[in-house]
């Protein structure tokens, strides 16, 4: 395929089937299944904590963070102060700093306002799907990422509201919810294997993965809370850096 690179527009749109909004929405399929399951459960919990349907819609659209929403409603039900809730939510979500930083080389071609919009919708799941694509492409398409994230966002909000509306009759559906939410760990497993397969040095990636998993479990067993992912990521990535020869430029 011949492309003129001289044009001012960095995204020529010649590959709509892989770079466009719809392709992004399609690549959100696994996330959508998982979010529907988790979102239904979240909606039930939020409803049980006394939030109205309108409040649940507002919560899932504006906050849009699974673990933070569970924390917010459970702390609210326990009568905790606003400052305690906000601080806990911050600690739970500060891990996204690492993911946002890892994505930044692939989004720096975009204007700042697009970085703000795309970054604001970043979740664990959209991050791992997006970063899997970065191994194959030097930069991410804003439309593809937008399609991916908008789909995930809408499914999450719909699932939360569905959970609230179905709350009374959901007990027999809990098995289905459990299976649907299992799409997320399966997706993590699949993406982990795919990430390891594109690594230039396989044993380095495997060492990082095993170290990170062990650290995460160790921290989580001793200190329940938000720190496991952050500490495991810092330790794992530092090991990855130490195992990278200084003379060789990292390619991905």
């Amino acid at each position, binding site marked *: 395929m011949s492309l003129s690179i001289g044009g001012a527009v960095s995204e020529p749109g010649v590959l709509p089937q892989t770079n466009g909004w719809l392709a992004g929405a399609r690549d959100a399929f*696994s996330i959508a299944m998982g979010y529907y399951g988790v979102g239904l459960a979240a909606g039930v919990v939020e409803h049980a904590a006394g*939030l*109205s349907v*309108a*409040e649940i819609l507002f919560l899932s659209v504006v906050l849009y*963070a699974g673990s933070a929403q*569970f924390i917010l409603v459970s702390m609210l039900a326990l009568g905790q102060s*606003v400052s305690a*809730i906000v601080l806990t*939510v911050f600690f739970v*979500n500060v*891990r*996204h*700093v690492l*993911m*946002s930083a*890892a*994505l*930044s*080389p692939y989004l*720096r071609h975009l204007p*700042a306002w697009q*970085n*703000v919009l*795309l*970054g*604001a919708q970043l979740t664990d799941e959209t991050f*791992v799907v997006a970063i*899997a694509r970065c191994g194959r492409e030097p930069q991410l398409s804003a439309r593809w990422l937008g399609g991916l994230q908008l789909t995930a966002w809408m499914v999450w909000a719909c699932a939360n509201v569905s959970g609230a509306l179905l709350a009374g009759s959901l007990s027999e559906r809990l098995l289905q*919810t*459990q*299976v649907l939410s*299992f*799409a997320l*760990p399966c997706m*993590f*497993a*699949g*993406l*982990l*294997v*795919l*990430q390891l*397969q594109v*690594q230039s040095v396989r044993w380095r990636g495997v060492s*990082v*993965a095993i170290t990170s*998993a062990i*650290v*995460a*479990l160790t921290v*989580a067993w001793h200190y329940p809370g938000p720190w496991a*992912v952050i500490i*495991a*990521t810092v330790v*794992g*990535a*530092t090991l990855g850096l130490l195992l990278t020869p200084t003379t060789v430029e*990292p390619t*991905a």
Partner: protein
Amino acid sequence: MMELRVSIVELVVLCALVTVLPRVLPLILLSRITLPAWLRAWLAAVPVAVLAALLALQVGVPNGQWTGQDPAMLFAIVSALLVATVSRSLLLTVLIGMLVYALLLSFF
């Protein structure tokens, strides 16, 4: 059912603010400067580390309302890892992983 309490709106907006900042600030700040090679090597190792940590926590630690620590989950995740290694297909991995989990849950 459709009421929207001011106190809830305020709380959600504050929580959203502290959620959005860590998601957005690195994208804005790091895109303005050229990162040193060591930092790029460190960031390049972040995805594998994040994925492994998230996966380990979902399988190994009871998490909120929707996952628990059970052998069915462990077995289904091992199946998913094998399917991913052989097929290199994310969709197939997710579908077979869910199928294995559903079968294990309904039979045992």
